[in-house]
């Protein structure tokens, strides 16, 4: 065992570091970089400039084919770049879904001339993409979606509603899965398209989250026309295409969010129980030890994943462990930290509270972390079925025409 980069990896890490040092600032001190409550015009401009710079320097789309501006590099180099970038303050939040999920799906299913048109502008950040999957009646049960597309000459006409679409209001294009045949069973009547988000009939409304942020949107479709040429995969094969998109999600190895154990240790030094630092309290110590063991366990699980990547293996469904453990741990540490503050744990004023308010912020943002991108329950199902080989659930909607299946809230 060793923790060393190979020669090639080390050289690449040095290159990435040099690029980042020349173009971005190192994160300073213990102050967390909090997710902004929304991406405004100025932030979009910063994101676009950064992405163009990164693409021009050859650090965007590392694993992509060279003809689209990629480097055809091993996924381990992407992980290494992400590790290095994580030390710097760089604008984030605009391209993860487009470059991580939408464009890889396009590369698997779109026509060559479409790829020539769309991939490079996406890579340079000139065009932003979103993913239109979830619906009010289909979240965890994604295939229960009801947005309809009906063939009309050379076009399809879309009516319905999507929800939880990150960045829809900033996007130029989107990938969408819709129902084209409600008489077929759930998974068989779906078809996949990409579309122009500026098409007439699309209305985007932000969702105001309990944390105060607005990362997601509702997107309404009224007689939106999409040319059949923008269909990805065959009619009725939309579910298969969706799985391609979702597989790409797994490559995203979760990063550590704050507050983490070290933040809790620091807080416990300052807070007092029975006139002594909370860090001397047995109950507090027990909690810290348990979370430390979990944090370290995840860190070394990431190292094992990196080792597999380094050997050219592809991470599978076992990667679900990262988000499953991280999201709950974040919520639990946030809540416990506030308990240590006592009544003042309620206070949000940065001047009056501890740790720049990160415990309060995490209390309100962590519920979404446990749901978005696969809820805890779905991740446990994935581990049980796809890693441990448990039989899939008995489904009452199996083989039943979709329009005979109850969906949503009754």
């Amino acid at each position, binding site marked *: 065992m060793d*923790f060393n980069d190979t020669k090639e990896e080390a050289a690449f890490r040095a290159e990435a570091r040099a690029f980042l040092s020349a173009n971005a600032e190192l994160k300073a001190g213990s102050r967390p970089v909090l997710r902004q409550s929304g991406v405004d015009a100025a932030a979009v401009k910063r994101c676009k400039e950064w992405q163009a710079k990164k693409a021009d320097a050859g650090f965007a789309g590392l694993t992509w084919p060279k003809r689209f501006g990629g480097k055809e590099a091993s996924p381990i180099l992407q992980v290494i770049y992400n590790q290095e970038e994580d030390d710097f303050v760089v604008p984030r939040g605009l391209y993860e879904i487009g470059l991580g999920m939408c464009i890889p799906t396009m590369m698997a299913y779109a026509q060559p001339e479409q790829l020539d048109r769309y991939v490079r502008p996406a890579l340079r950040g000139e065009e932003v993409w979103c993913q239109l999957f979830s619906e009010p009646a289909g979240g965890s049960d994604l295939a229960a979606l009801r947005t309809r597309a009906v063939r009309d000459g050379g076009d399809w006409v879309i009516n319905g509603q999507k929800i939880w679409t990150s960045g829809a209001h900033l996007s130029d294009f989107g990938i969408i899965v819709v129902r084209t045949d409600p008489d077929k069973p759930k998974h068989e009547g779906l078809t996949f398209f990409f579309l122009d988000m500026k098409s007439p009939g699309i209305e985007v409304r932000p969702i105001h989250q309990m944390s105060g942020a607005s990362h997601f949107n509702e997107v309404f479709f009224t007689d939106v026309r999409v040319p059949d040429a923008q269909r990805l995969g065959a009619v009725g094969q939309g579910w298969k295409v969706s799985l391609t998109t979702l597989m790409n999600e797994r490559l995203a190895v979760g990063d550590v969010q704050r507050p983490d154990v070290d933040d809790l240790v620091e807080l416990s030094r300052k807070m007092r129980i029975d006139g002594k630092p909370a860090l001397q309290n047995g109950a507090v110590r027990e909690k810290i030890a348990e979370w430390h063991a979990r944090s370290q*366990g995840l860190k070394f699980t990431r190292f094992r994943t990196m080792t597999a990547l380094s050997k050219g293996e592809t991470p599978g469904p076992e990667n679900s462990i990262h988000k499953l453990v991280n999201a709950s741990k974040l919520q639990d540490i946030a809540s416990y930290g506030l308990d240590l503050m006592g009544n003042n744990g309620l206070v949000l004023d940065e001047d009056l509270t501890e740790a720049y308010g990160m415990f309060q912020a995490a209390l309100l943002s962590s519920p979404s972390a446990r749901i978005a991108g696969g809820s805890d*329950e779905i991740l446990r199902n994935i581990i049980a079925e796809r*890693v441990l080989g448990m*039989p899939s659930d008995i489904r009452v909607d199996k083989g039943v025409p979709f329009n005979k299946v109850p969906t949503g809230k009754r």
Partner: protein
Amino acid sequence: MNFDFSDDLKQLRDQARRFLAEQCTPAVVRRSLDGQETHAAALWREIAQMGWIGAAIPEEFGGAGLGYEGLCVLAEEMGRAVAPVPFGSTAYLAAEAILTAGSDAQRREYLPKLADGSLIGCFALSEGNGNPEPSAIHARVVGGRLTGSKWPVADGGIADIAIVVAIDEHRQPGLFVADLKDVRRHDLQTLDPSRNHARLDFDGLPVQQLGSGGWGAVQRVLDRSAILFAFEQVGGADACLQMAKDYAQERYAFGRPIGSFQAIKHKLADMYVALELARSNAYYGAWALSEDATDLSLAAATVRVSATEAFHLASKENIQTHGGIGFTWAVDCHLFYRRSKQLGLMIGSAPFWKNRLVDLLETRNAA
């Protein structure tokens, strides 16, 4: 980044797994459990012949010189097989104490015999209730003679030598080697009868000290063995998850395999998560042992906490997944449930290691 065992060690692990699946069946474990034998003596001889006991002992002292990563992969398999042999007592505790604290002469005297199985070792630390700490040690050595009582001592009833923690002439806790041939001892009934446990009474027995004493030497043995025992715990937890998985696919209720119910799926997923976290921490522990890393103590406390939790969770939820049959004597679930507690209590229980972990975090963060 190469955070995995080498192909050679994976091969060793696979060989060990096959060998133990054949030679250390539940029937063999049950001979000790039912009191027909104190330990699987025949199996022990074979393990010794294959060089497993001395895996991490350098060749100059009669070991196989495979290094600590080798001992770690073997430990995982011993845990998976709930092996009723004094492997941990001899290889992780007695041999480690002599290797880390003993003089060259002591190493030459004892290590080859421990490695070839002709001597069984044990570690006599506890004196009744409580976790390891200097103030809990009352056994004393005066004029080279040991007086006091130690219980429970894993494998104390079958061992040839004991590493005894006792107060030395300078009123410091220290490590001593005791020949147990003429020592008064009696076997204890415990939660895990598949392992021998005894009480040892010393009444002026001549002993040799290992090194110059101090609690640091004791803690060093505890730290190093915690990583090795963690691999046993990981192996045991993995075996429980396999059993639960198999049963959940075979057992039908309400017209369907119980593994198709989310209540069972989520239970198994939680066992898997705890196991993977423990396994990843154990890998780091293996690295720390083989490199003698500066953060070995913190790595040991960390993996001790997560491996103890993982094995406890897996062994109890394995019983739960089996339902009624799971708590019968005939089905093997309880072998793991017992071993989980046995491993979780020896060398200090979870509260002790959690407290130590935070001590070490405080020291690290202050540095």
